[in-house]
């Protein structure tokens, strides 16, 4: 018999780590919505942002800056790096490939992934760097109800909190600002948006920059969890099933998909894993995504795919 306390603990832990997957998936959704580009480079962007942040932090702290100033300057520096990256990608990779089909664009972002990974590690170093922005110890909740209480990691709570702020911020940005409206117009129809005078290359720069900022946020949380290192780029692959489940074009979908994947894979690992050999976290999300695709090809929140001849 599975204890309710254990189940809740696994569920909460899974949901929280799901939020972290959502953080990466959000970057994908933003770019896919606005330019129809399936951005494989999101994981590399997380690595780049994380490395820029952690290295500048180390440098500033070693120079004797107080921690709060170092954090502000470090985040600013990383944001500038992401802006430069966004500009370069728009100018040299995506811009010249307008009107190519999705596969070519997808491959070009894999090319960009190689460039970003190489450049990030060459400039900022290729070791694993610890990042300590958030507390990583744990809380024990409901100790009166369950023996031993429910273990909740503070970092995960912070991650959820930040993801909430991020989504709210993005929602306001998309719904209330002029650039946000232009973004939604571009997402609906490139050509029509261009014809009413929306500068498309500027919009794409903004989108890639925002995705870069999302990557930076993801990097702060994941960097605290795992340390900033090369393996962080594999997050991009973990975010793909999240997208499939939530739908490529939906911001809430990315969040819900992340929660489902996070909770699902933790529960499967803990309660199913011992029976079939462990390590099923590795593929569970993908098989789950495959199952969702059979029922709803466009994902839970995706727009219905309509085809005409």
């Amino acid at each position, binding site marked *: 018999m599975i204890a309710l306390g254990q189940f809740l603990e696994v569920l909460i832990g899974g949901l929280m780590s799901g939020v972290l997957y959502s953080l990466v998936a959000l970057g994908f959704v933003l770019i896919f919505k606005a330019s129809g580009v399936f951005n494989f480079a999101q994981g590399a962007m997380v690595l780049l942002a994380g490395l820029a942040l952690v290295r500048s932090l180390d440098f500033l702290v070693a120079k004797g800056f107080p921690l709060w100033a170092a954090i502000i300057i470090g985040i600013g520096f990383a944001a500038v790096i992401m802006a430069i990256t966004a500009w370069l990608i728009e100018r040299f990779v995506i811009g010249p490939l307008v009107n190519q089909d999705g596969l070519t664009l997808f491959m070009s972002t894999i090319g960009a992934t190689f460039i970003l990974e*190489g450049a990030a590690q060459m400039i900022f170093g290729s070791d694993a760097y610890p990042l300590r922005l958030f507390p990583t110890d744990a809380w024990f909740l409901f100790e009166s109800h369950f023996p031993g209480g429910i273990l909740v990691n503070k970092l995960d709570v912070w991650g959820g909190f930040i993801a909430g702020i991020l989504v709210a911020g993005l929602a306001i940005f998309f719904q209330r600002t002029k650039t946000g409206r232009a973004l939604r117009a571009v997402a609906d129809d490139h050509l029509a948006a261009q014809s009413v005078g929306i500068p498309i290359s500027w919009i794409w720069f903004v989108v890639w920059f925002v995705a870069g900022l999302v990557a930076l946020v993801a990097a702060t949380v994941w960097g605290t969890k795992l340390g900033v290192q090369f393996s962080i780029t594999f997050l991009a692959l973990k975010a793909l099933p999240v997208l499939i489940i939530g739908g490529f074009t939906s911001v809430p979908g990315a969040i819900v998909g992340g929660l489902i994947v996070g909770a699902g894979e933790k529960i499967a690992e803990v309660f199913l894993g011992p029976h079939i050999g462990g390590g099923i976290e590795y593929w569970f999300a993908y098989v789950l995504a495959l199952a969702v695709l059979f029922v709803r090809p466009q994902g839970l929140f995706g727009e219905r795919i309509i085809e005409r001849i």
Partner: protein
Amino acid sequence: MLYREAGQFKTTYAEDMAIFPIRQDRMALAILLGIASVGVPLLANFHIWPFGSDYLLRAILLPFLILALAAIGVNILVGYCGQISLGSGAFMAIGAYSAYKLGTGVHIPLAWFGFAISIPPLPVLSSILLGGLTAAVAGILFGVPSLRIKGLYLAVATLAAQFFFDWVFLRVSWFTNYAPSGSVNAPTLNFFGLVLDRPIERYLLCLTFVTVFAVLAKNLVRGNLGRQWMAIRDMDIAAELIGIRPLNAKLTAFAVSSFIIGVAGALWAFVYLGSWEPLAFSIDRSLQLLFMVIIGGLGSIMGSFVGAAFILILPIVLNLIPTQLGVPLSTETITHLEFIIFGSLICYLLIKEPHGFARLISIGKEKLRLWPFPY
């Protein structure tokens, strides 16, 4: 001058529909095959430059041939049928591991039913081909989602195959014959009593496989089946309306492609690696194959070869340049530079010629047709 088809009159339908209707194409191909199957072995046998050591043969030509074979398989699926697959590495692994199991003897204890299935070790050739067949079956299974979904969604669905089989071959020790390290050794390459040990013999083996499968694939794609695939690729709904069954077309594409990829995987493991672990067939391999196909040209058998050569040789050249120039760089920096240059070249090629080397070749042919006159 050199490449004129004027005066080559076809007098029968068979001639008109021949696989290479232009005489110069046939000659070029014959010369290429002659060099590959006679020239290279001769040079290698007498250790004449550039075959002074086995390096070129073992580290470049062998992997080139095998990966070109795999790229042909991927091209059938992605280039001809338009179904994007990121799971090619998994199908290579399926081919490799099932060939390994068949080559070393299969024993399935079915304790529930009170008996066990035992197959004695099969000869290498049949285990490689059956390995391909197993991969084809797996390909059909993982091709079923393609009936519902397409494009990048399908790409992610095929990733499921990739990660699932990575895990299976890592964790289920039945596949590795309970080897404690998880790494397995290929059986002796014994073809009808002939043991292939030397690199040159292995090279000829791979060359035979690649030639046979390339001709088969070329004939398949210009026949009825290939036309069905291309119709599905160009627009699946329209293809369905003119009477092509998407189920048949898509699943045969998955089957044929996975079969070829599976055979390539078995060759990769048996002939090139010798002993291997699941890591040899990771997602990186899938991406590498996809790159080969896209850089080489979607929907071109020739392009698969060029793409395979480019993707395989580029990193080797990039690696050699700094040491040749004597630039003092740490190995780490060189690796990172390699990443950057590789990525930039990929992006550059995609921007300059999104249709890959195959398009460049056909443009070159058009130019050659007029040469030395401007028109």
